[in-house]
Every structure is written in C-alpha cells, then in structure tokens.
C-alpha cells in the first residue's frame, strides 16, 4: 500500500496505449510523482481541470481528441500557471516538433528513449517550472508592495490637501503610481498655496520625490514662507536628491482672497489659466523657468507673475499628459480642445468632469501613455461657512477684563530685530518672528491673527515707509500691475534705510497681550487724512488699497501711529475660549 502524501507532485499521463501509460507511470513514480491517467485528449482536459497536475505527458495521435487540440485547451484553461507539458511521440518529424511547440508544448520526447533521457527531460522541465513559480511569487509580492505604497502615498499627499471639497481634480495615472501631484495648503494669513507638479516619466520611479516635496510645501506654507522661498527650497532639495535625468516640472501659485490677486510661478508645465465665471480666459501663465531639480539655484531673473483676479474666477493648471493625449489616428488632443472643454465646464460648474469626459471621447479608449492631471481651484471662499475667516476673527473681548490688568505690568519676554539696507529686500522677518513666538509660547490658533498683523505692518513699513510707494496706485487694475513692477525695481536698488521690529509679550491668566511696534526710516505720512480717507472709501467698497490696515485695526485691541507715521504700535490681545 502506498501512502499518498499530498505534498508529492502529481503528473497527468494522456495516452491511448495502456502499455505506454504503465511504462510512463513507472518512470514518473521513480521520480516521486503520483500519476493520473487519461486515455484520450478529451478526458485528458477533464482530468487536468479536476486535478491541476504539476506536469502533463501528452501523446499526439489519440481517438476523440488528439494531443495538439488537448494541449491547446489545457494551456487555455491553465491561465497564468505554467502547466508544464511534454509531448511523447514516435513521430520523428520536423512538422510534429513545430506543431507541438505551437500548440503550447514545453518539450518533446521522441520514442524510443532511455529512462535516463526521460529523467533528464523531466528535470529540465522542473527547473523551468520552478523559475516560473519564483517569478510569479515575486510579481505578486511586488504588486502587493506597490498597492500598499500607492495607498500610503495618496494618503500622505493628496488627502491632506486644504479645501479638498472646493477644488476640482483629475488624476489619472498611466501606471499604478502617478508621477503627478496636486497640493493645496492654507497660509497663516489666509492665502492659499497651490502646486501641480509632474516628475519625469511615470510609475514608482517618478513618484518617490513626491514625499519630500509634499513635506516641504506643507511645512513652509504653514510657517508663512513666501511662495518663492518655498520653490527655491524644493528646487534645492530635488537638485540634491534626484539623479541628473530626473526632474520636476511644476507650477506654483499663491491665491490671495484678501488682496484679490494670484501670483504664479510656472517651471516647465504647460500654460496655466485664469478663467472668468463666464468661461473666458483672462490670463495664461506660461513657463518661465526650467523644471525644478536641474539647476542648483533658481534663475534670479525669473519672478512669480502677479495678477489681479475676481473672487468668482477659477485658477486651472494641467500637465502635458492632457495636451499630448492621442487618439487612434495619432492626433493630439491639444490646447484648443482643452480650452473649449474647460470653458464649457465652467458653464456647467464642473471643469474636471467635463474635460475628462471630452478627453475620453476624443481618445476612444486608446491606452494612456502619460499621467493625466488637472487642478481647478476657486479664487475665494475656500473655507466652509462655519470656518470662514476664522483666521481673521480672533476672540477679542468686548471689554477689557479687570483681572488682566494685574498681569499687564512688565512683559515676560521681549524681542527686537533691526533690518538694514539690502537685507530688507531679501529677508522676510515674519516666519522668523513666528518661529520665535511658537518656540516660546507654543503653537495656537490665536497666532494666525498675529501673523496677519505682523505681515500687514511689515509690508506697510517696507512699501510705503522705506520704498515710498503710493498705495493709491493700486486703485486701478493697470496701476496694480505697475505698483508691483515699481516695487520690484525699488527693492532691487535698495541700499539704505532700516526697519526695527519690537515685540513684548504679557501673559494673562487666560490669554495674553502682544505689544508690537514697527519703526521705519521713511519720511512718514499724514496719518489723520490717510486713515480718514481709507475708512470713507472702504465703506463705499470702492478701493483695492488700504484694506490691510483696516484689517489690522479690526484685529488689534489698539493701533496707534506716532512720529509722523514712521512708528506704529499695536496691541493684540487674545483670550482662551472658556469651556
């Protein structure tokens, strides 16, 4: 009695001659196989399906169904497993050899053969079969790893985006991983940073750089760094990280709801767009810089492009995968088809869906060659109703709480920074200050307002005090552009002047007070008339300038100008919400 071990391998012998079957069975058993027998091709296929053997020996000439046909059927049902199959025949002809290989046979043994030749053939087939199994296991492992990595990647990257529900997105990878990435993050002053990027190539190789880019983009945006600082840092990182022939084409934008402006830096992506709510193209933003990761430093002359916008405009970025998608005739989808589809999309309030369905209609199911991405961002109202302007509405108490005055005697710490001459053009002190505050007092929601106050006061001291720019220029759309051009020129030529920033912090039992002062070396201004003029115009909702100081006024407990407008002091008071 033979003990059947399920671990032993199973062979299927298909032959209409009983003698042959017995002979082959005996040889196979010597090699450690269990054997199943079928006497014609048709039962051979049935037994194959039933037993899933590790090896098949197949005769050619048999009744009912011959060996070639049976082999074709077996190879068809075996799908992805190898199902190693050897023809055993006495037909020693070229035709028989060729046809057996074409039917799917993995080898052929011509009778008569010695047991040694038989065993050698089995061994060589086993070797192939083992290799095949190894490859399959590796493939499966790789697939599982890739799926896991893909899931983690998309969780780290896109799912933490800001205002996800308000932005329209197309992200369709050519392979499992996309080399494209879409990021949005909220700045401390309420602006929105947007990034659409495309790493060279696609697949895993192209998506590795996505993690450092995401981390840098988020962390620096949160700390209040300017767009160009963030781009410079990402460029530097990718230059160090990526091999020479890999790079990152990306477009960055800072959208300010408060200034009604967008500033755009396109490094190697197709044109970006600003659409009006009627679907008209108000502005195109073409590439002004080589993709990131190629040059050790950004090209100095390439500056973000600043544009005015309306709150109902849409800002749209795409990667070249959309423009270069082809149909069966080899035609490109192209820019004008995209622009039409986007315009139609605006009219039905869904750019992404409209562009994607138009693109799919055009491509008629042609396989996708490159990653396809689009991001469509509204230019205002990113935060939900309940969250709207949270950053701009601190918890200012109606009246000063009496107990606070006991704490309001001497500051627990103070901090001073003096910036001179050319440094004023290159250094943004606000992130430095916010870092100090966060280091000493810990992070907190209330610092968002402080950030806004500091930014506005610094910009005022620099633009009006030091550079002597007239903000009434910003009243018209043309002047708006002229203002920022003039500002860039004056900054470049800045050699003297100073701004002194001082902070004193007074802790309260349930909150605190920050005393802020900015002193600049400018000539000052007629405080009374300017502020009065501002409030009038503001109430009529007419002007583009002067909003900054109005906002600071609302956020601060007190706001005073001294020394003919060259010294401004503000007190920002905050209280913990009582639970």
């Amino acid at each position, binding site marked *: 009695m033979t003990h059947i071990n399920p671990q032993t391998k199973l062979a299927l012998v298909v032959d209409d001659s009983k003698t042959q079957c017995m002979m082959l069975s005996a040889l196979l058993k010597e090699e450690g196989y269990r054997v199943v027998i079928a006497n014609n091709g048709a039962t051979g296929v049935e037994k194959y399906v039933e037993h899933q053997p590790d090896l098949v020996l197949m005769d050619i000439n048999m009744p009912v169904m011959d060996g070639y046909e049976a082999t074709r059927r077996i190879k068809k049902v075996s799908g992805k497993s190898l199902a190693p199959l050897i023809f055993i025949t006495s037909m020693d002809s070229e035709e028989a050899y060729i046809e057996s290989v074409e039917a799917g046979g993995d080898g052929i043994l011509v009778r008569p053969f010695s047991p040694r030749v038989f065993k050698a053939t089995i061994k060589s087939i086993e070797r192939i079969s083992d290799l095949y199994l190894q490859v399959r296991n590796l493939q499966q492992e790789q697939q599982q790893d890739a799926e896991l990595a893909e899931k983690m990647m998309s969780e780290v990257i896109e799912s933490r985006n800001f205002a996800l529900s308000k932005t329209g997105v197309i992200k369709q990878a050519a392979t499992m991983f996309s080399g494209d990435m879409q990021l949005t993050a909220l700045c401390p002053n309420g602006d929105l940073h947007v990034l659409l990027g495309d790493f060279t190539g696609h697949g895993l190789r192209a998506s590795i750089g996505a993690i450092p880019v995401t981390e840098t983009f988020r962390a620096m945006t949160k700390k209040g760094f300017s767009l160009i600082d963030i781009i410079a840092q990402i460029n530097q990182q990718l230059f160090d990280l990526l091999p020479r022939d*890999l790079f990152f084409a990306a477009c960055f934008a800072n959208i300010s709801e408060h200034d009604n402006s967008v500033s755009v830096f396109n490094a190697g992506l197709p044109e970006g767009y600003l659409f009006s709510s009627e679907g008209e193209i108000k502005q195109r933003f073409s590439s002004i810089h080589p*993709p990131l990761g190629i040059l050790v430093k950004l090209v100095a002359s390439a500056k973000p492009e600043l544009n005015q916008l309306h709150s109902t405009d849409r800002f749209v970025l795409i990667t070249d995968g959309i423009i270069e998608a082809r149909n069966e005739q080899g035609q490109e989808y192209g820019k004008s088809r995209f622009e039409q589809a986007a315009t139609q999309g605006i009219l039905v309030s869904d750019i992404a869906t409209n562009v994607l369905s138009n693109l799919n209609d055009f491509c008629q199911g042609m396989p996708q060659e*490159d990653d396809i991405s689009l991001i469509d961002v509204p230019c205002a109202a990113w935060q939900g109703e309940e969250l709207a302007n949270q950053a701009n509405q601190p918890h200012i108490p109606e009246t000063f709480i009496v107990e606070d005055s006991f704490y309001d005697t001497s500051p627990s710490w103070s901090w001073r920074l003096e910036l001179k001459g050319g440094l004023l053009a290159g250094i943004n002190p606000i992130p430095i200050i916010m870092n100090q505050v966060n280091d000493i007092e810990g992070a907190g929601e209330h610092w968002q307002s402080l950030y806004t106050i500091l930014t506005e006061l610094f910009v005022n001291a620099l633009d009006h005090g030091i550079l002597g720019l007239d903000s009434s220029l910003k009243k018209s759309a043309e002047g708006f552009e002229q203002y920022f051009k003039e500002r860039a020129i004056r900054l470049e030529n800045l050699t003297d002047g100073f701004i002194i920033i001082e902070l004193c912090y007074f802790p309260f039992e349930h909150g605190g007070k920050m005393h802020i002062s900015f002193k600049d070396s400018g000539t000052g201004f007629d405080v009374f008339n300017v502020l009065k003029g501002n409030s009038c115009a503001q109430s009529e909702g007419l002007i583009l300038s002067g909003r900054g100081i109005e906002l600071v006024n609302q956020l601060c407990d007190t706001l005073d100008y001294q020394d003919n407008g060259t010294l401004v002091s503000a007190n920002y008071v905050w209280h913990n919400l009582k639970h």
Partner: protein
Amino acid sequence: MSVSCNISHENNQVVISINERFDFSLHQQFRDSYSQCLDQQLNYVLDLSETDYMDSSALGMILLLKDHVDLHASQLVIRKPSDTVNKILEIAQFHRLMTIEH
C-alpha cells in the same frame, strides 16, 4: 527611430541626430553615441531637425549629454528643433541652460 552620430576630426565636431521619436527607448543608444568621445574642447551638435516627437525623458537625456559636454570642457548646441520639439524645449525653458540654434 534611430540615433546617428558623426564624428568629424577636422573641426572637432560631434553631430548627433535623432530621427522620428526621441523618447526613453533611445536611452542606451543615445548614451552610447557620445560616451566614447573623451577628447576635450569638442563641439557637440544635437540635431533635432528630423525629430518629430520628444518626451520629458528625452529632456533628461539631453541633460545627461550636457553633463558629459561640461565634464570634457566642450560646447553643446541644439540645432534646428522642429516646431513640435521646440514647443517642448520652450516649456522646459531649456534656452536658459544651453544654446538652441533655430
């Protein structure tokens, strides 16, 4: 689809021309076309007049060629890119990195 490379010793010129598509499939061929040129002070010309398609990996390959050229104190000129190819070079702002002759 092919890469051809002519080396003329008279005027120290290496001309590399690409036909039809310039994409990742040419990676090895492209690299082989110049990697044996180890002399200093050569004039490299990348002729893209017969190239009708180029993808971003081709841009990467050009950067590798540029590195090789810089390493051997030589010059690189991209010659006569076709309209389609020029559009791609323009988006990537490659004229800021190397000379492009139209």
